[in-house]
């Protein structure tokens, strides 16, 4: 089934083809998990978010309009789910701290200088307003174009650019003067 496109898999799924749907889920699990993790900074939470995303995917499959690309669509569900998860999360832990600790335990990782900066960056990301955070993660981290991000976030392209511009300013400020 690897040769089938996302759109084709969706079409098959809509006809009730369970293996096609399963394939779709497995294909995108990595992406969804990655973005969720960047959003919340905790592995367990990211796993919960990812699971939630795919349950929603099953529910919403019918509403998937062929107009948008599947990638855009799944990114959108992920961003929304992650937002909700953070808002409603029972334990409002300091996500950025948890992230850092986990990193230190899990893998000695890249050279110290880079690692330190990444740590601070994650902390700074946590302080951005949600909308800016979404724009930054999608464009700068996930590598979407401004246009694609605009589709994910359902806003004009210039808004995405503006949010990234704003976020860059604050990120730099945070990085230069960590509180």
């Amino acid at each position, binding site marked *: 089934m690897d040769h089938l496109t996302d759109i084709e898999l969706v079409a098959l799924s809509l006809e009730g083809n369970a293996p096609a*749907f399963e394939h779709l889920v497995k294909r995108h699990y990595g992406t969804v998990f990655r973005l969720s993790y*960047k959003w919340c900074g905790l592995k367990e939470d990211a796993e919960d978010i*990812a699971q939630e995303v795919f349950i929603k995917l*099953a529910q919403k499959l019918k509403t998937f309009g062929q107009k948008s690309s599947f990638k855009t669509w799944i990114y959108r569900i992920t961003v*929304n789910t992650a937002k909700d998860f953070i808002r409603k999360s029972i334990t409002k832990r300091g996500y950025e701290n948890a992230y850092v600790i986990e990193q230190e335990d899990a893998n000695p990782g890249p050279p110290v200088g880079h690692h330190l900066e990444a740590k601070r960056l994650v902390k700074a990301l946590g302080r951005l307003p949600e909308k800016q955070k979404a724009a930054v993660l999608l464009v700068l981290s996930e590598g979407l174009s401004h246009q694609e991000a605009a589709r994910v976030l359902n806003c004009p392209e210039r808004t995405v650019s503006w949010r990234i511009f704003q976020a860059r300013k604050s990120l*730099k400020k945070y990085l230069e003067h960590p509180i």
Partner: protein
Amino acid sequence: MTTDNDKLKNLLKDLPVPEPSPEARERAVKAAMAEFNRRGAADKKNIKGFSFWGRLKNKTLKGGPMMTRKITYSVGLAFSLLLAVIVMMPNFVSYRKGATEQPPVKTVPAVIPPGPALDAGPVIREKALAEHKFDAAPESGYGRQQLEIAADFNRPAPAATGMPKLALESASVEKDAAFRPPDQTYAGRDRFETLTPNPVKAAREEPVSTFSIDVDTAAYAFVRRALNSGELPQKNAVRIEELINYFSYDYPLPADRSVPFKATVNVFPTPWNPATRLLHLGIKGYDLVPTGKPKANLVFLIDVSGSMNSPDKLPLLKNAFRMLVEALEAKDSVAVVVYAGAAGTVLEPTPVKEKGRILAVLDRLTAGGSTAGGEGIRQAYALAEANFDPKGVNRVILATDGDFNVGIRDPEELKGFVERKRQTGIYLTVLGFGRGNYNDALMQKLAQNGNGVAAYIDTLNEARKVLVDEAQASLFAIAKDVKIQIEFNPAVVAEYRLIGYETRLLRREDFNNDRVDAGDIGAGHSVTALYEITPTGSSGRLIDDLRYGSRPSPGGDRTVEQSGEYAFLKIRYKLPAAEESRLITTPVNREREYRTLDEVPEDARFAAAVAAFGQVLRGDPHVKNFGYDDVLKLAEAARGKDRFGYRAEFLNLVRLAKTARAMGDR
């Protein structure tokens, strides 16, 4: 600039992300497949994929948007009514249970996200959605998510083995809900610091007890709110000292104004234990004479984030501040800082003479965005500093539901910030609003570290109490860093236990250390502390004598020990502008000892009743033979004048607690 941008981009690109665990991945796939299969089955049942809800929507759409809304609402209303009927008639539910495979709403109460009563309408419609599997496009809302999954569990499970995690959770929720009445101990997501009741201590081994006073009242208001909605509050929410200090007591005032307050001590039989006595310590601060009122320089720091958008938050808050502005004097000044996604000053310091302007700004506030509380606090302090009046009262009043999720988010960092600002002479008042997401632990931390008080505003009446009736006490501190140290005389007192103040305990050496922060007393405030003491030779002792412990007390004076004094009380405080503390000492002798409860002053008896109530609510072991009825009897006889009706309200709360317990399983 560009290099910076590139660097940022590279960093973001290479953010380290761990591998998801294979189990989690497997779980997600299973959960999604289960959902997929369920959907498929559901679709086949519906006529060509059109659900009832979908068809309804299609029809109504033809009638134009206005029509749609009407019909949608009336359908919603019809379902609400239907559901209300079902919920109210347990018999009907059991009848339905027997008759159909899919029992109706019985699962729903437990999974509805906690929300204010006014939200009931939409919530009920969500119930209807969940129950009937309408195919309204699912939104990102978690509440609905859970509802649908929970409701779905009445069907045969599609993947019985390796059930997905989320679904499992919902299943247990559903099961619990089916067997439990809807009224139960409210766990919620409100965050409280964990409380462990103070242990009984042997006076021979540890004669000295030290704590900071606490004039906050937040716990009482929170407990009231829980009880008023038919639930027992979570144990950690019950801070007994705050319950007691919610009420004002007419303890004797100091003879002259050279000392800001006076301490009164009574000893009387413990209502809940005939073998022990209560040592009751009452402190009353003097009132300000109206002419001597210092100028107030206030900065309102108001949370207008999305989470404040509920009738018991922002609208209540606006009314509360309006009342406060009305109660201020023309010379006072007010500034307003709001924070949501970003923090901003919406009103520069403005004299209360221009009341209209202040009120207009308050009126315009609306909620939206996430919460940059940290930045807001910074701006508020900056304004207070800019307008600082060395002779006046400088205070930041923070009103929030405590959900800081942007900016300084780490409680320790925030704490550090207000702690540093404390030295500038700016006081902090924290007003908590709302429920469901209330972060009490953080609010307490902020207030305690920022020379401040914390109150919880659940009703307009409470706002009036805190901001108008007790405005003097809330705004004008007459003494700060008030610490209490009691040394018990082991010749008379065998054991003692401090009731409440668990979060305010200090180390013995902190008492004389002026750098250790403690609570403040406002003008006219009264503070009460109670110790349960077990006299030597009483049958009620819990701790055995040490086999090798009959040595004389180290360094003590034997003749004083034989004097029959219960204890020696020391109070340290600082005047508001001072950095050095002063000391008040007084022996607790048998002068103010009462043989029977009836002779005890009303105020002391009432305080004992409130203490008993708090302990019963928490299920403390020391009050096991004392129930809500006993509390009622004790409090009823000690109501006194009760000018504002607070004590009458307390009696009502005790009755509510009794009912809530009867309904819950605690």
